């Protein structure tokens, strides 16, 4: 591990993983990066890509794909292509807010709980285990009832969806960070910091935090995909964002169910494919990073190549 010699760039999570990977694993990683990048670009440039606004109504309803509406229109007279593109933006906002909030809360709780131990720790562990065992969708439903009573405007909807998802994720971050903190607490460098007289806050913020959060990029990508699925599920059950405030894939799929029975496929297939592609990209990215972090699962180079590496070193 001659990491000190490597540049900062090559030690960034995704870049470092790309360098470590070979063969099939590299293919999956590259596919994940490509799809995720496409999703991010779509979200960023939605106003430029989409020909119409997400709530712009047209008089022709349920019309099949044509030159004016390349993916057709819905029963409500919306343009399917435009709504699918705008949906990326909504999904992106919710995922970023949700995961940022849950990392923030989960990391702080995990650090405090793991470092101080005692009854605070015990209570937090029991509560987080209880939440962890709860069906995530049901918890998100209950949270969204609390926050918005089920109907919401743009930011109200985005925040209520994001916070509902946050509550589901906090226990996961909490567990990971707490376990790492307990392990690190016994390390000599923490003990020496205590001897030197560093305050608990300083030890947690400087010494433990940096070491305990190494696995976070991985959990981040895995949770981002789960957040998208939860958002879509909330929207599907009619608990997401109203269609006039933002485009949301789950809501569109809810409306498309009755269309499907009548053989109208274009209203459901496109937003659904958007969900599948986005989640697929994020999961491929997260999975490959996970496998590359685990030496037992990491694909091995052929013997010939290994020799090459030895010569290099």
């Amino acid at each position, binding site marked *: 591990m001659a990491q000190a010699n490597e540049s900062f760039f090559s030690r960034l999570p995704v870049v470092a993983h790309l360098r470590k990977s070979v063969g099939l694993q590299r293919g999956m990683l590259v596919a994940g990066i490509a799809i995720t990048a496409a999703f991010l670009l779509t979200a960023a440039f939605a106003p430029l890509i989409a020909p119409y606004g997400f709530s712009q109504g047209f008089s022709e309803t349920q019309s099949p794909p044509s030159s004016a509406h390349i993916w057709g229109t819905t029963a409500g007279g919306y343009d399917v292509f435009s709504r699918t593109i705008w949906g990326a933006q909504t999904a992106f906002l919710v995922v970023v807010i949700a995961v940022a909030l849950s990392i923030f809360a989960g990391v702080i709780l995990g650090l405090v709980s793991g470092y101080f131990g005692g009854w605070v720790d015990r209570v937090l562990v029991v509560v987080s285990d209880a939440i962890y065992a709860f069906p995530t969708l049901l918890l998100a439903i209950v949270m969204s009832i609390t926050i918005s009573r089920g109907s919401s405007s743009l930011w109200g909807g985005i925040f209520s969806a994001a916070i509902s998802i946050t509550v589901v994720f906090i226990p996961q971050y909490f567990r990971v960070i707490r376990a790492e903190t307990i392990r690190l607490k016994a390390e000599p460098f923490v003990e020496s910091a205590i001897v030197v007289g560093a305050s608990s806050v300083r030890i947690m913020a400087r010494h433990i935090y940096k070491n305990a959060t190494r696995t976070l990029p991985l959990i981040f990508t895995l949770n981002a995909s789960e957040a998208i699925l939860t958002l879509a599920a909330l929207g599907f059950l009619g608990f997401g964002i109203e269609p006039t405030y933002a485009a949301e894939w789950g809501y569109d*799929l809810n409306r498309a169910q009755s269309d499907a029975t009548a053989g109208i496929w274009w209203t459901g297939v496109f937003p659904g494919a958007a969900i599948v592609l986005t989640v697929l990209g994020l999961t491929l990215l997260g999975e490959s990073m996970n496998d590359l972090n685990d030496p037992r699962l990491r694909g091995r180079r052929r013997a010939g190549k290994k020799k090459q590496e030895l010569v290099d070193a």
Partner: protein
Amino acid sequence: MTAMIDLPVEEPAAQAPKRRNKSGGSLGKYLLIRFLLIFPTILILVTMVFFLMRITGDPITAALGGRLPPEQLAQRIHEAGYDRPVMVQYFEYLGQLLTGNFGRTISDNLLVTDMLATYGAATLELAVNSLIVALAVGIPLGMLAGYKRDKWQDAVLRVSAILFYATPVFFAGLLLKLVFAVWLGWLPVAGRSGTSTEIAMTQLASPTGIYWLDALRSGNMAAYWDVVQHSVLPAVALGLLTAGIFLRLVRTNVIGTLGKDYVEAGRSRGVSEFRLVTKHAYKPALIPIITVMGLQIALLLGGAVLTETTFEWKGLGFQLASYLTARDFVAVQGIVVLLAVIVAISNFIVDVIAALIDPRVRY
């Protein structure tokens, strides 16, 4: 049981019996602690659900607000006792739960317990069907992927496992409906049975609500075939979601155990590759699967809510979605609490099974 272990123990080397006694005791202790843990878990969940649902208002305003004049609304709130301090309501609610009283739904004035009993059977049937699909698809394919590690079969299977996971059940359901019900016309679009089967079922003396059983008991083969046809698409939609998770899990564990010395030893003795994978590597790989299955039950129930809505499968999930639309939060609370209890209990059962088959699981 303990007596039988203790008897022959007296004379041989002192250490062995001591250890055996100790491990027997700790298993019992572990199971007892694990059992007692169910109660705080359920209490925490019930408390959380109660306060979260009550924090921003009472259920009557949520359901009927805007539709009734304010005086009448206040009257209804007072009658139901929602104007009392929230802590009083909380302890009253806990007391009611202990006696099995979940209250009455606001929108259609049913006893919540009756509603749960009526629709629970449908959800159970869906969950069992899809678990069968998940195991039948996930385990063999996972073994294949683990054995063909890093070959093209592995690549295809892993990507399809991620695809299964990435596809929301309501989208999988939509595609299945489009292809098999609308375009090919092989299977019905939605529901649990056709009208004639429904009528045949009502003539049964004491219906269980589980259509597989009821149709069998009615002895009407046409009705039975009808029920089977209706249950295929929902079971596949929900089953594939879980199958992806089983596939990945079996794959990882088979890879882990295939590298063990005893597998190598088996191979050197000429045990066939098929037998190595299906017997030697697969059995130890099962233990983590049983543990994870406990967590899958939560996922399965969450997925059932969406599957039932997609296929108009009239179970708890379907009801939950329609009560959500009606803003009937008493009914929602009842269903959520019941599902939480089911998850807590099934997690306990899974932990017990894992402890009994794997001697390493101890606190």
